[in-house]
């Protein structure tokens, strides 16, 4: 047997697919426990394990060579399997030879003995399937005084659906490959009066990196320090007109234990702890289970009283329920237009999609009338005061109350203070300082603190993904193809009608596919048709 044939047999085999799935599973497991695109310094592995992780580059498992090779092999297996099954469907099948011997060698044969005319029964049986739009498959009847046929339902062979959705997986992998090679993304923070640019092209795609690697391999490298200049017609200029956040109060449950099944059951059913003054009899019957059953019965019989849990919210709970960026978009040689971007409502423009990703704030902080710079981690110190101050949440937006009222929130900043402790074993507790509204001056920790010019900025992420269109085509193909194949009813019916002495024998064999397929229904309906 030559190698190409055996290679074809390996790649067209379902067993190969199962083995490849197992290997893929191992890769997925690695990626689910090791931080993808993480840093070796941040993981806790040491010694041999760390060497293995570094040498095999397991922190970049999905962009590393091993996974890419495995994906290529899996892709080849998928293509060859799909082709193999397509060839099998298109090949003209030999006619089935129907005879009594054929049915005696098969399992799941149903035999019906009928009183009636052979010709009439043959015609009725054939018309039963034709009326249900079954198609005849090529068959040859062997023997005298017998009539038979092979019928299949549906407009096409169910194997076509299998080819269809396997082909859609091929398209999906092609789409993912296009994404891998040509997609790029980024993030831009925009404050009012400081427009930002978003480029519609990027030099940092994997495709460009591959091309540059190949060029350097052939000795043709890009000149060093060549500046990447994005032409004006390949840019979008965005200016922030307004950024708004909607808030609503976050409800809490009063006196509800943080965790614990029994403490929570006690609270729900108002089971009190036994007090020291209870009598012995009360203590015996005060076991938790008795109290629970008793309170359940009392509640169901409506003699318990009006104990309910208590839902409330406080003035300082602000739960964000929506962010909207109102922007002015300017393209080369066109006029400015206003656009809105919200979470789950991105803007798609010239191959780039802009998403509402997050938001940012800036403000000026004055301690004793002197401006203070806050570090990137949000912390700052004040001379003469032991400990660290920290910038907390900044609230600015519209407040939507539970009863439908809205009000504009006076913007404020939360500041925290953490004292330094001499004993490092004791954790220092972060203290919530007074909230600072915009323009307000307050005293805290012996100093005058003022916050001014609280300004909200929007953080937009953007992405260019040319593979997405193919995925939008492949995904419904995959889903509907698989759904149709799995949930459909597919039958292949072999039957033979034999003229016996005074009766007619009907032999029936039904092969079925699909979860709703039920051969007993066909047998029952056919029996009714033949008036059994």
């Amino acid at each position: 047997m030559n190698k190409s044939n055996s290679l074809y047999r390996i790649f067209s085999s379902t067993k190969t697919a199962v083995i490849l799935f197992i290997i893929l599973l191992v890769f997925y497991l690695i990626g689910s426990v090791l931080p993808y695109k993480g840093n070796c310094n941040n993981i806790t592995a040491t010694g041999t394990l760390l060497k293995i992780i570094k040498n095999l580059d397991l922190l970049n498992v999905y962009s590393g060579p091993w996974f890419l090779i495995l994906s290529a092999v899996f892709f080849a297996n998928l293509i060859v399997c799909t082709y193999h099954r397509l060839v099998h469907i298109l090949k003209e099948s030999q006619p089935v030879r129907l005879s009594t011997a054929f049915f005696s060698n098969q399992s799941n044969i149903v035999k019906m003995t009928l009183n009636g005319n052979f010709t009439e029964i043959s015609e009725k049986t054939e018309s039963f399937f034709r009326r249900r739009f079954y198609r005849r498959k090529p068959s040859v009847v062997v023997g005298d005084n017998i009539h038979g046929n092979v019928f299949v339902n549906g407009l096409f062979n169910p194997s076509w659906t299998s080819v269809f959705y396997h082909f859609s997986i091929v398209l999906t992998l092609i789409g993912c490959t296009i994404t891998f090679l040509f997609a790029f993304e980024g993030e831009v923070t925009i404050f009012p009066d400081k427009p930002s640019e978003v480029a519609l092209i990027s030099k940092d795609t994997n495709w460009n990196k591959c091309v540059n690697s190949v060029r350097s391999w052939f000795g043709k490298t890009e000149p060093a320090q060549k500046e990447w200049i994005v032409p004006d017609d390949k840019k979008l200029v965005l200016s922030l007109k307004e950024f708004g956040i909607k808030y609503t109060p976050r409800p809490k449950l009063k006196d509800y234990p943080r965790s614990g099944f029994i403490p929570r059951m006690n609270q729900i059913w108002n089971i009190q702890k036994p007090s020291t003054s209870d009598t012995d009899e009360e203590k015996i019957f005060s076991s938790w289970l008795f109290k629970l059953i008793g309170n359940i019965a009392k509640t169901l019989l409506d003699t318990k009283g009006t104990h309910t849990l208590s839902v409330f919210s406080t003035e300082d709970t602000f739960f964000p329920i929506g962010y909207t960026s109102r922007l002015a978009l300017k393209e080369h040689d066109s006029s400015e237009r206003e656009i809105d971007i919200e979470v789950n409502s991105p803007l798609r423009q010239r191959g780039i999609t802009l998403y509402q990703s997050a938001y940012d704030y800036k403000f000026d902080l004055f301690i004793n009338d002197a401006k203070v710079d806050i570090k990137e981690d949000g912390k700052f110190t004040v001379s003469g005061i032991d400990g660290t101050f920290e910038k907390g949440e900044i609230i600015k937006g519209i407040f939507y109350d539970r009863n439908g009222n809205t009000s504009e929130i006076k913007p404020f900043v939360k500041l925290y203070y953490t004292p330094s402790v001499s004993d490092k074993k004791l954790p220092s507790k972060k203290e919530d300082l007074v909230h600072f509204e915009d323009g307000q001056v307050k005293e805290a920790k012996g100093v005058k603190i003022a916050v001014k010019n609280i300004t909200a900025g929007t953080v937009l992420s953007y992405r260019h993904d040319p593979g997405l269109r193919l995925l939008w085509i492949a995904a419904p193909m995959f889903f509907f193809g698989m759904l149709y194949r799995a949930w459909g009813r597919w039958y292949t019916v072999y039957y033979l009608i034999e003229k016996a002495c005074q009766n007619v024998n009907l032999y029936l064999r039904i092969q079925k596919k699909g979860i709703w397929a039920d051969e007993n229904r066909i047998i029952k309906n056919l029996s009714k048709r033949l008036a059994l």
Partner: protein
Amino acid sequence: MSGIQPMPTMEIFERDSVLLTLELRLLSIIILLYGLSCATHILQIIVSMFRRHFVVGNIATYILYAAAAAHTALIVIRGIAEGKPPFQSKYECLSWFAWTNVLTYIYVQKKWPRVHFPGIFVSMLSIAALFIATNKYDPVVTPVSPALQSDWYEWHVIIAFLSYAVFVVSCSMELSYLFIRLFNLIENSVIIGINKGFNTQIRKRDYLDYGIPAEALNSFRQMSFKLVLAGFPLLTFGIVSGAAWADNAWGRYWSWDPFEILSLITWTAFAMYLHAMSLPSWRRVGGSVFNVLGFFCMLLTFMGSGWLTRLFGLYSMHAY
């Protein structure tokens, strides 16, 4: 023309308090009913070891029906209180998961009314889910964060949980098939030993003692395969709709997030199962192994992703 006056905030909180109290009390009664059903199913198995008698099992099934009805009422109350389908928080997701499991099992169980093994697994899983929900998570109805305000999200959750429920019932049936065969083997070995040793004529046990005629045993196992065949497209839709939602909300349809990878692991495990079932040499053992593996992967995806991310210090946008 006078408009409808909005309720004052205090009255809204009072209404929420009453609804939440009613809901949590109903939940504890449901846990009790699931527990009773599970215990009665186990009792039926014990009774089956001595007599071919299914009354206890029927009682177990009726208790499960009562629990399912109560749970449906709970879901409706929660939906009314929230004003949207109740699967926005982990607490609600666990309740929804238990409910869909039980409803799917009840639908499938009608075809095999005397087989009570799967009822044990399904009711145990539902008890565990509700117990974790009551023990660990905050039951208060919270507002929905902006990322979850998407039609894709709702379809993603409904269809994904439906697929989970189908896989739970499939695995229950697969394990039941294995247990019945194993129990039968062990019991008959013991009976043969006793008959030989003590010269008695104790009747050997057959599959009908567990509620399945011998000729229907393969059909029972085939049901497990059909369930995975039904659930696999649903799981695929769950992953695809999740990707569509992620693309709309976060700008990337796939981020190799631990939760996403775990869902892909589940999908791959069931794909392996379906392929193995088409190979005669892999069908017997491989099929059962992959079905159970897929079930555990599904559990890990749903319940374990938060635990996994905390254990390994990973970031996941799905950890909540």
